[in-house]
Structures are given as structure tokens and as C-alpha cells.
């Protein structure tokens, strides 16, 4: 099965408006998504996955902190994470450096874990596959 079909084979088909023979509009339920939609959606999802994988490898290589990985996983930007956690954006960006992230107090980590909805144990490491 191709990736495009795999992403769209999730059991949640959408409905589309189509014209019938008499020129009236009817809702076609459980229809196949248009080809253009499949192509562009899978491109975006693939790019996101590749981006996430790249960051995971950077974390394992010690170039970035796990915080960066989890932020990307939740599809956030540093600005959004800063507002969500109540920490200034420049501090959030600073915490992307692994040596600084390793020294963080539990109270600061707690704020991040609430904002990202990830437990305190998990936030210190990234999954190794």
C-alpha cells in the first residue's frame, strides 16, 4: 500500500459536496478524498515526521535538549511554549541547549511537563528506537 493511502485509511472518511445528474448538490458521504488532497497532506505529514526524526537524532548526539523534541512533537513554536509554560521566550530558547537543560530545577521542569502534557520522567529523555 502506498503511503498516501495508508495515511488516509484511518476509518474517518470525510464528506464532500457533489453535483448529481439533476444539477442539485448532494453530500457524498464516506467518499474518497480527492487526489490533490492526498498528495499534499502526505507531503506535509512526511515533512513533519522527517523534521521530528532529525531533531531526535540531534538530541541523541547531544546538540539539542529533549525539550526541543517534545515541543516539535506537540507542534508548538518557542513563543507558544513560552506562553503555555509561563516562562519568557528567551529562557525557553536557552533551555534548548542540553547543558543548560540538564541543570534545570524540578519546579521549572514541572511547568514544562504541564504545558506539554508529558510526565517528569519522560521529559528528560527522548525515545530511542
Amino acid at each position, binding site marked *: 500500500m502506498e503511503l498516501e493511502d495508508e*495515511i*488516509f485509511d*484511518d*476509518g*474517518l*472518511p*470525510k*464528506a*464532500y*459536496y*457533489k*453535483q448529481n445528474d439533476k*444539477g*442539485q*448538490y448532494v*453530500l457524498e*458521504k*464516506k467518499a474518497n*478524498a*480527492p*487526489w*490533490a*488532497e492526498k*498528495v*499534499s*497532506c502526505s*507531503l*506535509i*505529514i512526511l*515533512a*513533519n515526521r522527517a523534521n521530528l526524526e532529525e531533531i531526535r537524532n540531534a538530541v541523541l548526539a547531544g546538540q539539542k535538549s529533549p525539550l526541543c523534541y517534545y515541543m516539535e512533537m*506537540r*507542534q*508548538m*513554536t518557542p*513563543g*507558544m*511554549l513560552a*506562553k*503555555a*509554560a509561563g516562562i519568557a521566550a528567551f529562557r525557553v530558547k536557552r533551555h534548548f541547549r542540553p547543558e543548560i537543560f540538564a541543570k534545570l530545577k524540578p519546579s521549572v521542569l514541572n511547568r514544562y511537563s*504541564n*504545558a506539554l*502534557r508529558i510526565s517528569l520522567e519522560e521529559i528528560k529523555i527522548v525515545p530511542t528506537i
Partner: protein
Amino acid sequence: MNTELAVNGKPFVHQQGAHCETGVTSALFRYQGVDISEPMIFGISSGIFFGYLPFMKLTHLPISAFRSKPGSVFRKAAKRLGGDFVIKTYRDPQKGMDELREVLKTGQIVGLATNLYWLPYMSERHRWNFSGHNIIVIREIENGFRISDPTIGDLVDCSADGLAQARFVPGPMNPRGYMYYTKSVNPHPDLRQACIKGMKDSCNLMLKIPLPIFGVRGMRFLAKKVIKSPDKLGFQEACRHLAGTVRWVEETGTGGAGFRYLYAAFFHEAAGLFGSDELADMSKEMTAIGDNWREFSVTAARIIKQKDKEVETFAKAGSLILQCADREEAFFKKLQKVVGKLKA
């Protein structure tokens, strides 16, 4: 059949719709005994719109909205059709969930705005950080809620925890537990008056906003950006931006071609209501514009797949958007004249 009883024993029939918010609004009205279709709600609440927001980004892609602001559909429809309705937001998640439970106990069904990323039953292709997805909660069940999501064919269950997360996302994307329901509605709404109001409002939104990112001018702005994008961003990145635009046209519950087919269906219904041939012609014109948008998305997909590289270029995709802009400008200018002649 997808029928579910609310707390007070009143049956609620789940119908799939193309778009979340219009589907929810028409279901709320249907539950109160006013039979009104999804396209009708879309037209009356002037849901059609265009806005290109390059400074707001979701997953690193700019937003191009083909509909009016989330939340405005229910508000405008309820105002124009008449009735007693409640709209609320909360600061405290606990209070928001408690009040939801209390309202459900009185036999109401409640519309909610939620974040797509956090809804537990969504699949990967729907999961992105957008806080304007609307759903209906029918009643509370053990450890969760029974939910009717108009973009999905069947009723679904959702855990209470997951729903609370989706309603209260920390940070700037927070929907703040946005909740709305109708207490009572006008049993015989004046559809003709409401239609006229909706059409006039749509004309103003599309033609008269004096900012270059909204309405017809916004489309031209987007077209220019698309034409320049391969030089500015490089081919790969330009493809991703183009794919992002196509997702707004086709994927986000639009019913195909950026709501244009849905709007054509509205004109088809309105033509029957007013007995006007002009409106029937408008419906055909809107369909043609919808086909034009579809053509754009197919061209975009061919660019991404690198088929016929000489013919399918970014310049062609941009010129298709410009074509859409010209046709829609003519369409709404004509609509202004046609609406003036209609009598409520």
C-alpha cells in the same frame, strides 16, 4: 441509524456534514425542531470568506482561511434566525467541565470548540494544532462523553480527560472552553430576511475590507506569493507551502474546493426559496469558481509530484488563483445588485 438519546430522552439524529461548525449549528437547530440544512446555515451566517495570514503560522505554514473566523458562524446564524442562545468561555478548566455537565443534565446538547491535536479519537492526518474544531456533546456516559462530530460519519466516545485537554490547551491557542447552546429558537424563522442579510454581509466581507490580506485582494496577494515562492524559498520549501494552501482548500472540512461548492448549494436552495432565476445562475457561476479552485489544487499536486514540469509551474498555479479572484470579484459585485432586488 445514528440516533442517540439525550439525558431527557429526546432523540438526537447524527448527520454527517462537510464542515464542523455549520454541521454543529444546523444540528443544534434541528434538535430544537427547526429543520434547516447545512448549506443554508453557511449562507445565512456568511461563512464564505478569504484571508491570507502570513504572520500566523501553524506547524511552520502560513494560514490561508477560506471561511470566516471560528465562532462567528453560530453567533451570526443564531442572531439572524432569532432565538435565545448562550455563549460562554472559562478561565478555570474545572469550572468549565462542571458547567458542561450541569447543562447536559438539563437535557440540552452543547456545542464546543476544541483543539484538533488533543482530541483522542482523531487520526494522524487530522492532528494539527488548530483550535477551532467544533463538536456536539450529547450526554455524559461512564468515564466520558458521547460526542457527535459532524465531520465523522458515526457517533464517537471521548474520555472526560481527553475532552478537558482539548477544550483547555495552555498557551495562545487556548479555546478557553468555548461553549454554546440554544435555550429556545424561533419555531418559524424568517428565512428570506436572514438570507438577504447573510448575502449582503458576505459581499461586504469579500469586497470592502480595506486591508490587502482579506477578501478578493487577499487572493491576489496569495497568488503573488505563490508565483515568487520557488525563487524565494527554494523548490522543496515552496512545495511545502503550496501543499499547505491545498490543505486549506480541500482538507479542512470544506466540502471540496474551499467551501465554494457548499456556497453554490446554498444558492441552489435560496433560488428555490425566492423563486428567482438570477440566484440559480449565481449558483452555476459559483460551481464554476469551485471547479477553478479544484483545478488549482490539482495543478499544485502535479507540481509536487513533478509531473509535466514545463506546463505545471508555480506561475500557472498563481495565475489560476488570480483567475479565481477576478471571477469572485465579478460574482460578488453582481450579487450586490441581485440582492438589492430581492424582497423579504
